[in-house]
């Protein structure tokens, strides 16, 4: 199924057995079986409505499910809440966050799983907050309120909040939304660093070219896992083109993978500008 992992026995960040989940009376996940390797970056991809976010929410224990999910070998259901919160960090999509919160307070909330109830922040917490804010280049806004930041800046603060948990596993739903290309590149490097230090990253990305930067792809369609495999294997590329109805093609360019749309005719013929300005 996947390429051999480094080291002896493979360790799984997540194992799901016959996971089924419903949203508003509709089954959004059908008997999902998967094993996501530890210390790797896995991207979940698939068409709209494939169940990508639902699967991520199940892994984060945010969506009720039938079946079993194991987090680093432990049953997710019986794991103490605090242990789970220290182990898994969550970055959601389009979550409404109060605008009047101060940036450093927001990131400090990421330390809640490590703090005593109503306890003051320790030096370790303060250091973690600074590290997270610097990692996302958000340190200079630490005294501002979220309402004073643009969409992409806000996203970087929320990313810093997720980093401040210093969890073993990071789950991110569309973390690159609102980020401009330089900060998308920064995010890619950040995830590489995290994975190099042994952390596991699972992300939902609808931008296939960015998802192809991951170590492995989990390809979903209609609430089912269609394929799981390393990003650079031909089988994975085939499965990817299949779930998108052969309307994308995977190309290699300078050692990176690129997904381009497949058009029924060359773009110059499809365009119908009367002045012919488009002709090469």
């Amino acid at each position, binding site marked *: 199924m996947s390429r051999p992992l480094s080291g002896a026995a493979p360790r799984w960040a997540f194992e799901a057995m016959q996971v089924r989940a419903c949203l508003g009376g509709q089954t959004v996940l059908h008997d999902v079986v998967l094993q996501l390797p530890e210390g790797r970056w896995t991207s979940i991809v698939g068409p709209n409505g494939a169940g990508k976010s639902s699967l991520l*929410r199940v892994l*984060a*224990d*945010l969506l009720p499910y039938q079946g079993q999910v194991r987090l680093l070998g432990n049953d997710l259901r019986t794991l103490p*809440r*605090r242990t*789970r*919160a*220290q182990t*898994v*960090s*969550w970055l*959601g999509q389009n*979550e*409404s*966050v*109060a*605008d*009047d*919160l*101060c940036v450093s*307070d*927001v990131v400090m*909330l*990421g330390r*809640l*799983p490590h703090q005593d*109830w*109503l306890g003051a922040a320790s030096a370790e917490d303060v250091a973690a907050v600074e590290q997270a804010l610097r990692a996302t280049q958000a340190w200079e806004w630490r*005294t*501002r*309120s*979220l*309402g*004073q930041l643009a969409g992409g800046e806000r996203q970087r603060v929320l990313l810093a*909040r997720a980093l401040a*948990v210093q969890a073993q596993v990071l789950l991110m739903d569309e973390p690159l939304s609102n980020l401009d290309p330089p900060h998308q590149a920064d995010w890619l490097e950040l995830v590489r660093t995290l994975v190099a230090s042994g952390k596991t990253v699972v992300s939902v990305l609808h931008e296939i070219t960015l998802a192809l930067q991951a170590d492995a792809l989990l390809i979903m369609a209609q609430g089912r896992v269609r394929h799981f495999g390393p990003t650079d294997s031909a089988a994975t590329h085939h499965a990817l083109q299949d779930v998108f109805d052969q309307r994308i093609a995977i190309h290699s360019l300078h050692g990176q993978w690129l997904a381009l749309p497949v058009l029924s005719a060359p773009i110059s013929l499809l365009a119908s500008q009367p002045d012919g300005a488009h002709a090469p």
Partner: protein
Amino acid sequence: MAMLRRLWRVPPFVLGLVLVFLSLALVLVGSAVGSHGWEPVLALWNETAHALDSPDAAIVWQIRLPRTLGAWAAGALLGLGGAIAQGLFRNPLADPYLMGSASGASLGVALALAAFGLSPLALAWRAQLGLTGAAFVGAVLAVVLTVLLARGVHNSMRMLLAGVIVGVVLGALSSLVLIRQPEVAASMQAFLLGSTSFVGWTACSMMALTWVLCMTLGVVVSPVLDGLALGEATAHSLGLPLLRVRLVLVLVLGLATGAAVAHTGLIAFVGLAAPHLVRALVRTRQAALLLLASLSGGLLLMAADVLARGLLAPQELPVGVLTAVLGGGYLLWLMQRNAATGFASGAATGRPAV
């Protein structure tokens, strides 16, 4: 502009000290304002030893002081309730009456008035306590009904809707009672407008006790309100016990508003405006926000009460009318200011509706 905004922010403890100082000053003013003017206080000041059983002393000790302190306590309960409601429902327009407690209390009072409103007993102090009890029971039952209708506390949207439904239905029932017994309408009016004039030492101490209990519970569970500001999913991912704490918060909300409404009637806008006042001045965690919002609520209602007594003295305005004008005007000003500065401060436009 951002610099200007930052200058506006004051450290939370400074705001707290200012609020406490202003409140203490207003207690002094409050004990000196009324139909008899300054004289009772001056008389007390001049003759100290044997003054405690004089009529002047009675005016200050038995009427003005409990009433002023009672206004503070009721305002503090409403301010606390407002801050909790806005944090719990993640909506800046949430007010403490959102869970149906206002209409529940009204129905309780309407039923009590209809049951024994016409007897001479109604004027007695004991009947007053009966009305207080009816209002409190009505408020708390309405909150319980809202939670039952919402099938628990795990979905805040459903709680919000259930609260609206309970409010409308119980309001209709109150109207029905009033139609059947039109003679209670006048007494009902006083309750609906809100008034601090019946507050004595008993009411004062009951509200103070409730305040201590509710504030303690609120501060203890405040980390969950902090987490909820990041969204429910994130709050859950941080390992916060959302379900249990929501239950505690709903209970505190019901208790705080129930106690305030029972003793002072439906006082408008204090619960809504107090947290906004704090958020416009300081940026802080929820534990401090609850305390500061509560202190502001107390100050607001006490100021409104003093004004209500002093503006047209010896006549008296219903304090609820004043709070509606003051609180509404303040929120309007805040809205205008936010529109003028061009970005959301979170006070009036910050969080999206639930």
